[in-house]
């Protein structure tokens, strides 16, 4: 078990929102709300990065694609940990989508959404620019009902 001291408030927020979702799927309403309360506390205490630009994301993404995912994948393959390999396969694909969206944004700027809206797959994080809800997620194969439109 990894110790909590190594987790940032942002990571603790993600741990709690993940557990809230797991409770919601089990129809455990009270536990769902309690984990959300914790998530809100940690989100509020997340470090704020002021005055940043989306350009800066590209560099961080590249480090993930070149190093972080690769290291994780090697370890998971050695251990035969297929659950982790599944998360990494989806995560890497979604991260590549982030990269291509940023490239399009760099070229088109505010015109990026002139011909469509942003839809996000709540199961894996895939983002589409589309004029209608995608029928199925190309990464995790979740159905249209798992997509949310980003306002």
């Amino acid at each position: 078990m990894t110790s909590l001291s190594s987790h940032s408030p942002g990571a603790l927020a993600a741990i709690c929102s993940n557990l809230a979702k797991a409770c919601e799927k089990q129809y455990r309403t009270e536990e769902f709300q309690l984990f959300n309360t914790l998530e809100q506390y940690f989100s509020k205490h997340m470090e704020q990065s002021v005055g940043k630009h989306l350009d800066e994301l590209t560099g961080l993404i590249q480090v993930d694609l070149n190093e972080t995912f690769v290291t994780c994948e090697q370890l998971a393959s050695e251990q035969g940990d297929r659950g982790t390999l599944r998360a990494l396969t989806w995560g890497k694909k979604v991260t590549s989508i982030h990269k291509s969206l940023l490239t399009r944004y760099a070229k088109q700027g505010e015109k990026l959404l002139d011909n469509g809206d942003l839809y996000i797959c709540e199961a894996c994080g895939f983002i589409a620019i589309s004029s209608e809800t995608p029928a199925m997620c190309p990464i995790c194969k979740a159905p249209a009902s798992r997509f949310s439109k980003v306002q």
Partner: protein
Amino acid sequence: MHAVRNLRLCTKDCLCLFVCPTGATDTETGQIDFAKCIDGCRLCVDACPSHAISLILETYPEPKVKESTIQKALNILLESKVSQEQLCSSVASNSEKATKALATALARSTRILAEDCARESAFMLPQSESVRQFLAELVDKPYGEDFPYDTVKRLLELL
């Protein structure tokens, strides 16, 4: 084990009302009355023509603890995704229109990726030893006065 109804899949054919021996399936909220539901009965599960009813366990098998090297590697990825989420959230709150929408979508997407890292490293099942340990550690942490200690204690009671 009790039955739950997925309201999005339910086609209101109401065959569950015919088979339920206790009337647990007939409620004003549309959800099954868990208190009236008979443990493991599953008559409604099998009768439902739209496969909208399933059974939920009260206790789950303890998940396999992951190798510590994998947990560490997943934590590094988790922290990386969280810092990307922070960047995107801050851009979203300081911009408008397409930039705001894209930054919002990226923040939500990176959160989902971070959650998946947390899930695979040690936090898959809320009713697991690693989550109880996590909550116990939170209770002992010297957070500020605004930290919801009661929330953590209640979770430890429930899980």
